[in-house]
């Protein structure tokens, strides 16, 4: 998987600091990471380590302070639909129906390339990918948290992104719903072969979904502490995996990193 196309997404010595008056806070320092096309990468770390900041940098929602970020050789310096984001709290527009939320994205991205009928079919196709066609006419306030997150994924997928960025997408969901959605994401990844980057603080989630796990050190000035390859063949089954030696080993490695070498220091600020 790693051999086909080198340097699809290239993060080169990226640093990020926030300036508040005269106070400068280094959030990320010297991030170097190369992600291949079609790869699924999980980014894990304790809260406050700058995981979300890293994702926002890739999304283009925040600017890098130094260093460079390139997607297919082109520098990333603004947000755009080719790097769609599934936000932590779904971020659906509450005054639009499920269908219209996806439509907003589809109409914007495909206004020139698809006809009205094609766009309609494309919206329904994407809702179908996350099994949400039945709620197309409901508003986000009328559906459950898990469903909202599904729609958020559908909206992101509908932009046909080169890279799909997921910012702790299942953090606020209960364990059963979360497992359901993890399966859905794995299924979509298998079918579409998207490049996906997912922020998580759940060790099992990281190991189950990812080809590689990027482990972040604690902030301030957090950086990549370790990268772990998860060489478990796909499709992966969560039940069979529970006792799989590779899975257990990967899980242990991540746990060791998080709780032995980079323990979360309470009240660091």
């Amino acid at each position, binding site marked *: 998987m790693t051999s086909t196309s080198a340097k699809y997404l290239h993060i080169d010595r990226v640093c990020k600091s926030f300036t508040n008056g005269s106070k400068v806070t280094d959030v990320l320092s010297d991030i170097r990471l190369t992600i291949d096309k079609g790869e699924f990468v999980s980014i894990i770390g304790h809260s406050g380590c700058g995981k979300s900041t890293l994702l926002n940098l890739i*999304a*283009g*929602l925040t600017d890098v302070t130094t260093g460079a970020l390139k997607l297919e050789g082109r520098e990333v310096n603004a*947000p*755009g*639909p080719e*790097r*769609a*984001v599934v*936000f932590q*709290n779904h*971020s659906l*527009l*509450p*005054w639009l129906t499920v269908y219209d939320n996806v439509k*907003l*994205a589809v109409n*914007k*991205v495909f206004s020139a390339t698809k006809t009205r009928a094609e766009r309609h079919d494309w919206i329904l196709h994407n809702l179908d990918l996350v099994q949400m066609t039945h709620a197309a006419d409901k*508003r*986000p*306030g009328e559906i459950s948290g898990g469903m909202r997150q599904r729609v958020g994924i559908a909206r992101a997928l509908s*932009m046909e992104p080169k890279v799909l960025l997921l910012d702790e997408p299942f953090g606020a969901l209960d364990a059963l719903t979360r497992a359901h959605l993890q399966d859905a994401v794995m299924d979509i990844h298998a079918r579409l072969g998207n490049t996906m980057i997912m922020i998580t603080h759940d060790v099992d989630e990281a190991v189950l979904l990812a080809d590689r796990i990027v482990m972040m050190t604690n902030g301030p000035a957090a950086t990549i502490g370790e990268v772990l390859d998860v060489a478990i063949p796909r499709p992966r089954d969560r039940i069979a995996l529970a006792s799989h030696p590779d899975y257990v080993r990967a899980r242990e490695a991540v746990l060791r990193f998080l709780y032995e070498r980079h323990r979360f220091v309470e009240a660091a600020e």
Partner: protein
Amino acid sequence: MSVVALKSRPAESPKPEAKVMALPAPPKSRLAIRRILSDIAGRVLPPAVVLVVLLAIWQVAFSGQTSGLPTPSTVWTESADLILDPFYVYGTQDIGLGWRVLTSLERVAYGFGLAAVVGVLVGAILGQSALMMRGFDPIFQVLRTVPPLAWLPISLAAFMDSRPSAIFVIFITAIWPIIINTAAGVRAIPQDYRNVAAVLRLNQIEFFWKIMVPSAAPYIFSGLRIGVGLSWLAIVAAEMLTGGVGIGFFIWDAWNSSRLTDIIVALVYIGITGFVLDRLVGWIGTVVSRGTAT
């Protein structure tokens, strides 16, 4: 303790013997009608009683020979035509109060409509830019406290005509709460929605219509509601000074010809119209911003 408690429990268990009995269904429709009737009575009766009591006190208090103000009964005997037929036309200056209210409302429509459009646009710009906000906000905070009529002389001097002057006074009175509320609403747009707009690369106009207006709608409409109330206050006062056929001028005219009972009827018209305007904008607001609260 716990052992005893455990042992004693089985003795109590063979108990459930109660039969399920269907209760006779209550006559639903009659009950529903009665509930609606009592609901209406609960809303209408208290204000009606208060009104009757107030009218009675008024009647008794001003019945004396020396009293300078008319009683409700004299209002009725002298101005019944104004109350009963709001839309009569006897001549260019002798028309029903309904027509006068409509003339005033027309001016309000122009002034307030203009204030709504300009206010929302200016508010949106200020809400988007922290720097603009810092620059303009103190000035607006001062200007908004200027009483409506204080604008009138300047307005007359600028427009040289009473009609645009009255409209300008309404405009300048109503615009401040609209600007200030819209700016607050725009600043309160969640960062999430802004991120969505950024990822989708919505342009300024798309952002305005698809994110800003629906998201800030509750704020915008509370500003519009305050604005329409102020407009109504301003037009009555402005018409007293500028003349014409509006309800405000009617009051001034009635005062000059000592028709106190007419003034009292006009006050009731003004109060009811203001109330209806307020409710109307409030209602439009709830309809438009439906589903905004998650």
